Every structure is written in structure tokens, then in C-alpha cells.
């Protein structure tokens, strides 16, 4: 269950991401059912507003319930959605600025909270730490009091590996020393062609 309060509010971008995931993947009716069940009193999150921290867990819980899906799986799917769906192309591009290769990208995750704040000054995401066990084995530690961010990053990493054309095996190791830990085994650095990334491409 989600608990804790790292910051006193959750940024609208995150809530909005959840909303778009549900609508794009399961349709508007399911989203409306979830907001009704969560009893938050409105149906649309504004990306540039902030919301009380307690709202996000309630919405996620209701979404799980309405869709009949386990919490971890749902969050992983949300993570995949926010970087791979064509409706949210901007985030994929911003993440690709982290590095030319998937390994460089993994290393850039240490800076991710700072990068997020540079883009949107009040956007807070949990501190991330990448450990390099060998050239092929890494582990990512996600320091958040709110459980679920690790699963979300599982989805993000899966989608980004695909984006870079790398073949990686990911495993969520659960909570270890106050951090959700993801083990990353890099099987092939250049497994597939990966998706195009032009530095200068302008998003519409």
C-alpha cells in the first residue's frame, strides 16, 4: 500500500500521467469510474498544478480496483506508458537527452531528480542511485517513502531499453535498506536498432 509523505504535495504531472494512462489504455469510462470511487470530487488533473499527496494513492487504489489489476503491475504499466506512448512523446525525448547509449542513460538516472527540477522547478521525484556491479550488471535504488516508484521505474527502464535498442533483463528485488531495488542485467548493448533520436527534433 502507498504510504508516507516525501513532499507535502504531488505534482500534477504525475497525476495527469496516471489519468492519461488509464484513458488511453482503458477508456474514459474506466477513468471516470476510478475518480468516482476515489471520491476526489473531480475528474481532470491539471498537469501544472499540485495536489495533496493523499490523492494519488487513493486514485491508484481505485484504478486497481476498477481494472482488477495488481498494484505493482499497474505502476509498471504506467511507467512504460509515460515513455512509450505517442501521446506523451515529450518525456521520452527528455529522457533520451540523458545519454547516447542505454548505459549512459542508466548513469544519468542519478541526476534525474535534478533534471526534473530544471524542467519544472516544483516537480519532485525520488532520489535514484545506480550501482554498477559489472559492465553487464547494475542495480538501481529508488529512495522513496511511497511504495510503487520502483515498479514505475521498472516500466520506464523497460521502455527506455527498448527505445535504445538494448536487451536488458529487469528484476524488482523489493525493498532493501529503505530503497526499492531493481536489478538490471544487460544482455545485449545493441540488440536492435532502437528508435531514432535527433537532438534538434522539435516536438509539436
Amino acid at each position: 500500500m502507498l504510504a508516507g509523505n516525501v513532499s507535502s504535495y504531488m505534482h500534477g504531472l504525475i497525476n495527469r500521467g496516471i489519468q492519461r494512462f488509464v484513458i488511453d489504455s482503458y477508456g474514459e469510462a474506466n477513468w471516470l469510474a476510478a475518480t468516482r470511487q476515489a471520491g476526489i470530487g473531480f475528474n481532470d488533473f491539471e498537469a501544472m498544478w499540485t495536489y495533496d499527496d493523499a490523492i494519488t494513492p487513493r486514485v491508484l487504489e481505485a484504478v486497481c480496483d476498477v481494472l482488477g489489476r495488481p498494484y505493482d503491475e499497474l505502476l509498471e504499466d504506467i511507467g512504460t506508458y509515460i515513455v512509450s506512448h505517442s501521446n506523451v512523446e515529450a518525456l521520452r525525448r527528455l529522457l533520451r537527452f540523458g545519454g547516447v547509449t542505454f548505459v549512459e542513460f542508466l548513469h544519468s538516472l542519478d541526476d534525474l531528480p535534478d533534471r526534473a527540477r530544471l524542467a519544472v522547478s516544483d516537480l519532485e521525484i525520488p532520489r535514484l542511485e545506480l550501482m554498477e556491479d559489472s559492465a553487464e550488471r547494475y542495480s538501481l535504488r529508488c529512495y522513496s517513502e511511497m511504495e510503487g516508484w520502483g515498479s514505475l521505474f521498472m516500466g520506464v527502464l523497460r521502455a527506455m531499453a527498448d527505445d535504445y535498442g538494448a536487451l536488458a533483463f529487469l528484476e524488482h528485488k523489493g525493498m532493501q535498506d529503505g530503497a526499492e531495488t531493481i536489478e538490471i542485467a544487460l544482455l545485449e548493448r545493441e540488440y536492435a536498432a532502437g528508435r531514432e533520436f535527433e537532438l534538434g527534433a522539435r516536438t509539436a
Partner: protein
Amino acid sequence: MSEKKCYKMLDVLCPMHVIFDRAGSINAAGPTARKIAPDDLIGKNFLDVFEIKRPREIKSIDALLERTGVRLNLRFRSAQNRQLKGVVMEGPEPGQLIVDLSFGISVVDAVSEFDLTAADFAVTDLTVEMLYLVEAKSAAMDASRQLNERLQCAREEAEQQALTDTLTGLKNRRAIDQDILAALAAREPFALMHADLDFFKAVNDTMGHAAGDHVLQEVARIMTNETREVDSVGRVGGDEFVILLKAPEDPEVIDRIARRIIEKLQTPIPFEDKLCRISGSVGSVIAGDYLNPTADQLLGDADAALYAAKHAGRGRHVFFAPHMRETSQIA
């Protein structure tokens, strides 16, 4: 250091460098410099390829030598739209000059134009971070702009649904219409007055809009004071007002109220150090005079009576009579 080693070092540390000799002949260039150059650089004369615009026009290598270490503004002679900045220093070999180039602020366009990638910039170069920021900020601005548009729409919608005239605090047309419909539905006795200010345009024109606004607020105060809580007073146009008087339907009482309002309107209204002089004309209808009155009919007939009042000389109150309908339609 061997020449080859030096070139290799410069390729990594500053991939947009150009190396030339005292005669100006270019003998090496970094990978990014070659990528953005309109033509092959090697063997060309530096000053034939580049135009140096600042600190001042430099036309000889000797003049350039006097400017080592300072910021240069330059551009390709054959691609003049692309501004570059750079700095020149003497190289380790005798007579060798090395210039390092950069796009400066035009980098965002240049990256698109030349399909540059992270590998085209030095590892320490912050260009990629800058591009990240530009894109991140555009995305954030875009989200904010969309939010603003939505808020603007919501505001317009709220204004449309509003029932109050913001200048005077009276009801607006919408609210008055609703009150009339409600009174008709309840089959209550009531009278409707349509009032129009006289000489208001002159106040507005000669004393300014601030004076005009002040007058309208005073008029609102007068009409509110001269009616009861249960009545409705609304501003339905620039200087047009509608008053809904709940029972009784006694014409004498209604006439007295109308006259009192007109009298008060004729009292000069001070504004700053001047006096605004207006008057008012009023036309009235009594709902009980109709078998099956409608809001449109009552408002239309009150308007016809108002027209008759104006026609009869300003500052009057007139009750509607059927013959006025013709006159007002002709008018």
C-alpha cells in the same frame, strides 16, 4: 607532442577547431567544424572561408594574431546566416594558429540544420544539457499555456452564467429575464419599468468614461433605494435599466415610484469637481393588464412606452397603451 597526437587531442577537446598557418592556409579541422562547413576546409585560406566581424573587421592573419584570446564573432562567407563565435590562439608548432568555434545562442537551430548529435560536441560541452532545457521548458510552457487557455474559457463561461452587472452590482439582463419568467410562472401581480437615462451620452462624451461609470453607479444606488428588497433592478444595456415591481399593481403607486426615481436622477451628481446632469425616461407595463402575458411581450411594450415617454419630452413616465405598439414599430 607529435602533430598527429595534437590533432587527435583537439578533435576530442574541441571538435569545432580549425588549424591554419601564418599564410592562412587551413591544414586541419575538427570533425564538427568539417561537418558544419559549407565546403571542404583543408587547403583553403582561413580568411577566404571565414568573415571576421568583431571585434572589428579583420582582413589579415597578422591582424588576427593581435587578437589572440579575445572573443571573435565570425561567419562562413558562403553561409552568412550562421553566426559563430570563436577564439584564436597560437598553436604549439611555429607559425601555427588554432581557432576554436562555437555556435553561441544559434546552437538550437544549428543542431537541427546539421543533424548534430551528442557525439559532435565535446564531452564537457553543455550544449546537450542546454537543448534538454530548451525542450523541457517548451514542454512545460506548453502545458502552462494550455492550462491558461482552459482557465480563460472557464472564466468566459462563468461570466456568461453570471447574474450580476459588474459595474453597478445590479442584476444583468439574464437575471432580470429569469425574474420575469419566475413572476409569470407564479402568476404574481407585478409591473415592469423600462428606464433609459437622458443626456447620459453627453456626460460620457464631455466628462469621460470615469464620470459615466460613476453616474451609472449613482443611478443604480438611486433605483435600489427607491424600490423594495422584493423588487428586481437590472441594468440591461449601456444606460438602460429594467425594474420589476412586485404587487401592488396600482398605477398610482407605480407612477409615484417612477416619478420619484426621475426626480432623484435629475439631482446633479458630483464627480470630482464637476456636476453631472442627467435625467431619465420611464415606460411601464402592468402584467395584470394582459390575459396571457409573456416576458417578450411585456418587455417590448415597456420599451414602446419608454419610447413614447422620450418622444413626449424627456424626464417623463408613461404607461403603455396599445396605440404605442404601432408607433414604436414604425420608429
